[in-house]
């Protein structure tokens, strides 16, 4: 529970600070500090147990399916980091309280984000479950994104934030992959088990991949070469952020990871060469560039990179001692780098600048700060009596015992010495260049504003601890460090001593060399700056932005090329896919013909089919003359009808016929607003391609049809034939299927029609047509809009057609017909009235609007279906009975009729709604007026 509280209290604090006492900065900061203070107390309370070598574990279920558990672990390594994180956090909170003085909103926002970040860091170091660790790992990336983008109105801040997120987030993804791989190799995501499976992992085929992925995660987070670029650009963050994230915590997460996985991944050649090479490269690059940064925070950032490289190098050497020294230096680095960053922030606030070329001679104004800075800079440079000296000396010693052979063996200490020299140079620079070096340049604020006393408190505390650790390390950190190393390595520790003993030896010599060389280098700085300025300037952020922009543009171009808005292309792709995919399957067809005897051909059918084919081809040939093409389509419809009739499908024939006329009328209505001809647009090649595509699809369909038709048939249809009369009460089996056996399909089908009608209504509602294309310059003999002769003929026709429609409807159950066809006949008869009398004339005479008709039809069909529920039968269960009424004759009553009536009503409503609304477009007062 204590473990959980250690992690959760800052989180709670984050929520509280975000929501409570937002306008009172002091209360807010106090509130912010409460959580970490308790956490720190709790963590310290665990210290004795940890130092006894105990390992505390806590476990709560989260997602057992994924082995993702809320598992926490506290051992030496975790505790070392946890204490560092909480303690530094508290100091930063204190610092920030004064830093953001006068900006309560900023202060509050920082406090809550800061606590969120602290939670994330604590989570990383205390996770026992690898996946749970990842949660916090990504959380640090996200919160750091927000923290770096704290001043979002600044372009640099935004860019820096995004760059950080992209690099560390990307690393996080790699780490995710690495963790999952580890979990798969080990069979568990619990750290305890993973750490015990070092050999298993190292011998696994995936080991190089795992190592690469984990390293990618660690290196990006810890700003290792070549991923170090984000760190300097993250300096746009407010200084408290830099203090916490970029010196004390976040950048150490990668190191923590390397240390944590040391027993699992280290001690192989691959580890040795990859990690130490990266570390060395980072160490040198950072140190070299740091010297030439004029921005205080820039210098510190590169120096941080350099120190991180140093630690990585130490871990990379894979020796047990290397790890101990690495951890020690990590600790020391936090102690001296954090106050330096704090100093940078204080100077920035005081002078309004961070440019060391302008800031000179501040000792006059801030002597106390000068002393503190001196201490920390000296520690950074590795001057004796300070903590930096100790770890750096041990680093030199370690470099002398590198596991490399040959030239590499000597190269390591040599480069280490060079790096040491460079670090001395920039350490001197940061001290001398700010506080001495003559008079200040044109600073925004001069004389500098006096820093508040409070802001100096954390600096003082940290500087003092540098001294304390430097003097008596064995009493301060030794035991914890030892335990941390012990828990990280999981085995016996080599003999070592943190103290000042053995002052004069080879490492000491190297230190002296570095000191003097560094000093010399600083002396020669003007020449070096000049030299450096001549180097081509590479702005990583610009490059990053450029890269991102190019990637975006490239992607945009590709998108435009792929998704170019051409329906023709999409349709061609669809067809090509529909040809190729089934085509591959059809390669396996052994015989197309199925062996069944073919139905004998008769000349009339042949003729009909030929006319159908001729009409279809002619429609394609003349498709540019649209009305003609439409006519030919009408002819196709007629002959499809005749084919249906020929092959024993009278219902289909009736339906096809009525549908065809309606469709042609609708298309003609639309055609009056469209150009009457189609321009010749497609180049011959395109037409050829289209023909090939369409032809192969058509050929395939024909082949399939032939193949199936000549194969023997097995079907469930015998059931329908057998049960139609007895079970469905009708002898027209097709109709019984439609209204009974598969009435649900019919319900769906009427629904589709109803929706289409409503959709047409919605589409035409506000449609403003600019004037129709076909002219109506009346000639003398055709000037009447609604020819009288048509009108007179159409009128008596209506009741007759309705009578026929009633007949078709009623006989449907037993003979070809039914609600759908009857509905279409009714609609066609009524649409003839529209043609003969005009929309307005006919519409006034309709006894109902159409939309209610659609709704009522559907409801009737639904209600019929629901009726059976009352009898405990499933939806749409039909019921019928034959009654012999005295005098009236045989009477059949069937619920299916009622259902069919619903279909009928829907069809009438829907088709007329469509027609009327299309027709409405033609009238002058059409738009805006709702019809139907």
């Amino acid at each position, binding site marked *: 529970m204590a473990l959980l509280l250690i992690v959760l209290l800052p989180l709670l604090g984050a929520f509280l600070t975000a929501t409570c006492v937002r306008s009172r900065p002091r209360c807010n900061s106090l509130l912010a500090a409460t959580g970490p203070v308790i956490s720190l107390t709790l963590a310290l309370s665990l210290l004795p147990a940890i130092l006894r070598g105990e390992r505390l574990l806590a476990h709560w279920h989260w997602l057992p399916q994924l082995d993702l558990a809320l598992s926490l672990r506290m051992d030496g390594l975790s505790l070392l980091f946890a204490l560092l994180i909480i303690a530094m956090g508290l100091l930063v909170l204190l610092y920030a309280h004064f830093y953001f003085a006068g900006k309560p909103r900023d202060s509050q926002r920082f406090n809550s984000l800061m606590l969120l970040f602290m939670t994330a860091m604590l989570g990383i170091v205390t996770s026992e479950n690898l996946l749970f660790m990842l949660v916090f790992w990504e959380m640090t990336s996200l919160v750091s994104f927000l923290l770096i983008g704290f001043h979002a109105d600044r372009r640099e801040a935004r860019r820096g934030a995004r760059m950080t997120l992209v690099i560390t987030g990307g690393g996080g993804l790699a780490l995710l992959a690495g963790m999952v791989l580890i979990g798969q190799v080990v069979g568990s995501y619990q750290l305890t088990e993973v750490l015990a499976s070092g050999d298993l992992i190292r011998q696994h085929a995936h080991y190089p991949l795992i190592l690469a992925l984990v390293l990618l995660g660690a290196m990006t987070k810890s700003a290792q070469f070549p991923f170090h670029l984000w760190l300097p650009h993250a300096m746009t963050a407010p200084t408290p952020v830099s203090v916490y994230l970029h010196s004390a915590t976040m950048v150490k997460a990668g190191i923590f990871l390397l240390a944590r996985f040391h027993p699992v991944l280290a001690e192989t050649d691959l580890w040795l060469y990859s990690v130490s090479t990266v570390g060395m490269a980072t160490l040198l690059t950072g140190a070299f560039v740091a010297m030439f940064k004029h921005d205080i925070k820039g210098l510190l950032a590169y120096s941080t990179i350099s120190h991180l490289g140093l630690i990585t190098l130490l871990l990379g050497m894979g020796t047990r001692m290397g790890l101990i020294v690495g951890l020690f230096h990590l600790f020391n680095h936090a102690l001296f780098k954090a106050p330096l960053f704090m100093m940078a922030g204080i100077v920035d606030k005081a002078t309004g600048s961070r440019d060391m070329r302008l800031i000179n001679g501040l000792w006059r104004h801030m002597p106390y700060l000068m002393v503190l800075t001196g201490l920390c800079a000296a520690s950074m440079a590795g001057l004796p009596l300070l903590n930096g000296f100790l770890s750096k000396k041990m680093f030199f010693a370690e470099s002398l015992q590198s596991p490399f052979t040959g030239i590499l063996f000597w190269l390591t200490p040599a480069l280490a010495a060079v790096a040491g020299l460079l670090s001395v140079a920039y350490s001197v620079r940061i001290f001398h260049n700010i506080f001495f070096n003559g008079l200040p340049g044109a600073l925004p604020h001069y004389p500098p504003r006096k820093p508040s006393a409070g802001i100096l408190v954390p600096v003082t505390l940290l500087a003092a601890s540098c001294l304390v650790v430097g003097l008596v390390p064995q009493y301060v950190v030794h035991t914890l460090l030892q335990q941390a190393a012990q828990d990280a390595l999981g085995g016996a520790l080599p003999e070592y001593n943190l103290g000042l003993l053995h002052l004069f030896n080879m490492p000491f010599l190297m230190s002296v060399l570095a000191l003097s060389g560094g000093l010399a280098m600083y002396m020669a700085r003007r020449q070096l700056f000049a030299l450096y300025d001549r180097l081509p300037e590479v702005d990583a952020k610009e490059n990053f932005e450029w890269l991102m922009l190019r990637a975006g543009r490239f992607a945009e171009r590709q998108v435009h090329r792929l998704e170019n808005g051409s329906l023709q292309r999409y349709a061609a792709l669809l067809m090509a896919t529909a040809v190729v995919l089934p085509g591959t399957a059809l390669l396996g067809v052994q015989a197309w013909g199925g062996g069944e005897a073919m139905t004998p051909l008769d000349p009339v059918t042949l003729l009909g089919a030929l006319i159908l084919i001729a009409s279809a081809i002619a429609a394609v040939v003349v498709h540019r003359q649209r009305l003609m093409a439409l006519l030919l389509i009408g002819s196709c419809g007629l002959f499809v009808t005749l084919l249906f009739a020929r092959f024993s499908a009278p219902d289909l024939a009736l339906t096809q016929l009525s549908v065809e006329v309606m469709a042609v009328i609708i298309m003609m209505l639309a055609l009056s607003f469209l150009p009457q001809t189609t321009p010749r647009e497609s180049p011959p090649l395109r037409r050829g391609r289209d023909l090939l595509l369409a032809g192969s699809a058509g050929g395939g369909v*024909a082949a399939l049809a032939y193949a199936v038709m000549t194969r023997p048939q097995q079907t469930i249809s015998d059931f329908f034939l057998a049960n139609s009369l007895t079970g469905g009460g009708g002898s027209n089996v097709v109709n019984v299927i439609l209204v009974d056996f598969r009435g649900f399909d019919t319900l769906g089908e009427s629904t589709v029609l109803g929706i*289409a009608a409503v959709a047409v209504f919605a589409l035409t509602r506000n449609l403003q047509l600019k004037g129709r294309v076909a002219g109506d310059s009346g000639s003398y003999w055709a000037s009447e809009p609604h020819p009288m002769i048509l009108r007179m003929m159409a009128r008596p026709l209506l009741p007759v057609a309705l009578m026929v429609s009633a007949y078709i409807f009623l006989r449907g159950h037993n003979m070809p017909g039914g609600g759908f066809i009857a509905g279409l006949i009714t609609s066609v008869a009524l649409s003839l009235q529209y043609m003969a009398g005009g929309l307005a004339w006919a519409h006034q005479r309709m006894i109902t609007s159409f939309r209610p008709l659609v709704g009522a039809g559907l409801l009737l069909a639904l209600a019929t279906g629901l009726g059976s529920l009352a009898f405990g039968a499933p939806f749409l269960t039909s019921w019928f009975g034959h009654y012999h009424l005295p005098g009236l004759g045989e009477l059949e009553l069937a619920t299916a009729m009622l259902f069919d009536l619903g279909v009928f009503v829907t069809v009438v409503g829907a088709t007329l709604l469509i027609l009327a609304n299309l027709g409405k477009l033609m009238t002058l007062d059409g738009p805006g007026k709702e019809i139907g």
Partner: protein
Amino acid sequence: MELLMAISIGVLTTCGLYLILRARTFPVVLGLTLLSHGVNLFLFSMGRLTLEAPAVLDGSGNHADPLPQALVLTAIVIGFAMTAFVVVLSLRAAVELRSDHVDGADPDEDRRL
């Protein structure tokens, strides 16, 4: 007869697809109609071809397969609904895109701000 039917289906499908690949809405609509003729005949012929034996029970034993007929009927109706809709849509698109080209007068106009 089967071969003739297959060829008719193939021609209808080919013509329909070819028209669907045209650049103007109206031929596309016509193409959709032809295509639906083709596929309806296809679905119909999946019940095999039967002469002179509608699925109306009259005491004789031989009947055409009624099920595909019912399915085709449904497909015809749905096809009709879709045709009606797409016709109106093409009208509306022609008005709003200032062209009856399937991609409008300027296919990229909605990419721009």
